[in-house]
C-alpha cells in the first residue's frame, strides 16, 4: 500500500501534527506492507525542514516549493495535492486542522472519492483500512470502510502519537505546475490573535474557563496557569462565556465549538453541560475545579477539586511553576 501523508507547515516550520500524520501512515504501512511518502508544500526552501520526516517513517519527502505557496492558499494547495495524489496512492492522509479540513473535501471532489474527516483511529481489517471517527461531537463513534481508492481521511491532531521509525526520508522536489494567475481566491491578510499560543484544537494541554470566572478580567488567572504549564498549553472556553463576549469563538470547546483531545484538560468554573462534554470527553486526563460538588463536570473528570476557583487556581499555578522549575 502506498500512502501519501501531507506534512503541514506554517511560516516555514513543520507543525507537530505533520509528525503525527506521517507516523500514523507509517504505522499502517508497517502493518499492511507498503511505503509512505510525505508531501511538503510551502515557499522557496521549504524542503529544508523535511529532513526529519524520515525519522517518522517517510520513505520519501516530496517537496513542492513556490513563493506563492508559502502560506496556505486553498486553490494553490488543492491543485498541488490533486496532481500528486493521482500518482497511484492507495491512501491519502491529511491533518484535521483548519487547513486540512478545508483542503480535503475539495480534493475528495476532484478525485471523486468519499472523505472521512477528523478520524481518531485507523485499523487494518482483512487487508483493508477501517476508519474510526467521532459523530455527534463525540457522543458516539462510527467505524467506516471505504468503497473507493484512494482512501482519503483527515487525522485529528493530538490523537496519533508520533513514533520514531527509521526510513530513507529522501527529500526530492516534485515538478507540479503552479499558476497563481489562475487562482480565483485572493489572500488579503492574516489577523493573528495577539498572543502566539497554540490553538485550543492543537494544544496538548488546555486550560478552559466558564461562567464561574465571573468577569473577563479574571482570565489573567487562567492565562497565568497556562503559562506555567508551558508553551504547548492553550486556552479554551465554554459557550456561555463566548456568548457573553468574554472570549473569542475560536476558543469555544463543545458541540458548536471545537472538539479537542489534549492529553490534559482543565475545566475551571465550567458546569459540564452535555454540549461542552461532547467537545472534550476524549481528552486524556480531565481536571475540574468547581465549587459545586454536584456539577456534572465531576462525572467525567479524572480529578476534581471542590472549591472556589479564585483560591484554587492561583495555588495551582504556583505549584505547577515550582514543579516545572525543578525540571
Amino acid at each position: 500500500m502506498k500512502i501519501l501523508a501531507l506534512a503541514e507547515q506554517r511560516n516555514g516550520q513543520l507543525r507537530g501534527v505533520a509528525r503525527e500524520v506521517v507516523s500514523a501512515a507509517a504505522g499502517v504501512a508497517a502493518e499492511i506492507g507498503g511505503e509512505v511518502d510525505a508531501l511538503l508544500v510551502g515557499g522557496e526552501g521549504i524542503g529544508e525542514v523535511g529532513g526529519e520526516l524520515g525519522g517518522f517513517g517517510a520513505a520519501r519527502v516530496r517537496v513542492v516549493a513556490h513563493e506563492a505557496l508559502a502560506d496556505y492558499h486553498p486553490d494553490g494547495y488543492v491543485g498541488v495535492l490533486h496532481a500528486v495524489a493521482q500518482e497511484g496512492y492507495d491512501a491519502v492522509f491529511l491533518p484535521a486542522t483548519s487547513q486540512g479540513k478545508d483542503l480535503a473535501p475539495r480534493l475528495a471532489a476532484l478525485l471523486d472519492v468519499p472523505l472521512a474527516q477528523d478520524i481518531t483511529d485507523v485499523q487494518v481489517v482483512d487487508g483493508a483500512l477501517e476508519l474510526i471517527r467521532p459523530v455527534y461531537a463525540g457522543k458516539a463513534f462510527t467505524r467506516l470502510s471505504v468503497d473507493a481508492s484512494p482512501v482519503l481521511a483527515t487525522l485529528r491532531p493530538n490523537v496519533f502519537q508520533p513514533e520514531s521509525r527509521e526510513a530513507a526520508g529522501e527529500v526530492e522536489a516534485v515538478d507540479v505546475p503552479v499558476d497563481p494567475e489562475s487562482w480565483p481566491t485572493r489572500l488579503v491578510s492574516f489577523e493573528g490573535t495577539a498572543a502566539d499560543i497554540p490553538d485550543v484544537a492543537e494544544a496538548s494541554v488546555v486550560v478552559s474557563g466558564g461562567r464561574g470566572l465571573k468577569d473577563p478580567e479574571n482570565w489573567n488567572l487562567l492565562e497565568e496557569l497556562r503559562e506555567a504549564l508551558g508553551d504547548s498549553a492553550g486556552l479554551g472556553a465554554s459557550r456561555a462565556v463566548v456568548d457573553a463576549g468574554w472570549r473569542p469563538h475560536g476558543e469555544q470547546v463543545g458541540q458548536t465549538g471545537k472538539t479537542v483531545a489534549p492529553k490534559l484538560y482543565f475545566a475551571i468554573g465550567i458546569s459540564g453541560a452535555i454540549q461542552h462534554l461532547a467537545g472534550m470527553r476524549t481528552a486524556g486526563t480531565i481536571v475540574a475545579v468547581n465549587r459545586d460538588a454536584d456539577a456534572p463536570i465531576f462525572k467525567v473528570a479524572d480529578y476534581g477539586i471542590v472549591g472556589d476557583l479564585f483560591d484554587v487556581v492561583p495555588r495551582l499555578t504556583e505549584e505547577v511553576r515550582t514543579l516545572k522549575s525543578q525540571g
Partner: protein
Amino acid sequence: MNIIVCVKRVPDTETRIRVGDDGTSIDPSGVKYVLSPYDEFAVEAALRVREARGEGEVTVVTLGDDASQETLRSALAMGADKALLLQGEATADGLATARALAAEIETADPSLVLLGVKAADDDQQQVGPMLATLLGRPCATAVSGFELSDASVTCHSEVEGGTQVLELPLPAVLTITKGEYEPRYASLKGIMAAKRKPLETKEAQTAPSRLRVRTMELPPERSAGRIVGEGPDAVPELVRLLREEANVL
C-alpha cells in the same frame, strides 16, 4: 442577489445518543430534531444580506426525508423566502450529498451559496467545499463574517491562531460559523407566514454512499474520577497525582 442556504435536520444537541438495533445508526425514538445550529447561522447571514440590500431572495434547500419539511419551515419562519426538499437519504458520504445539491444549485445559479461549517450530527465538515468544487466556484470555510461588493465577497475565515481574510469573486460558496451571526428567533408572525411560503418537493439524484458504516458505538464511559479534596489545600495532592499517576505534568 439570490442566495441559497443548504440546511440539515439533526438531533437537538441536548440529545443523549443511543445506538439503534441495527448497530450502525442512532435510535431515533424520543429524539427531538432541529435545524442544525451552524445552518441557523448561515440562514441568519443570508437574511442579513437580503435586509441590507433591500432585494433578493433567500432559498433554503435540504436533502432528506419528508420529516425535513419541518426543518425547512423553521428556516422559513426565520425569514427565508422559499424552500426546496430534495427527497433522498443523507448519508455519511458527504460527496453524495454535495452531488445531489450541486445538481439542483447549478441550474438555479445563485450569487451566493451558504452552508454551515459542519452539520451537528456527522460533523463531517465537508459538504460546503465539495459542493463548491463540483460547481467550479471559489469557497471559503469557517467564515465568521463577510462583506459583499458587486463582484466579490471578502470573508473572515477562522483558522488556528487567527483570522484569514480572503477575497472571492462571485458567485461563491461559503461555510458559516457563528461569528457575528447570532440567529434570530422566529416571531409568531414569522411562524404563521412560513406556513404559506412555497415549499417545493422533488426526488433527489443521489448516488449510493461509498462510506460504509460498519458499527456505531458509544465511547467508553469515562469512569467518574475522584474528588481529590476541597479548596486550595487539595492542590499539592492534585499536582502529585497528575505527575505520578496520570503522567501528564
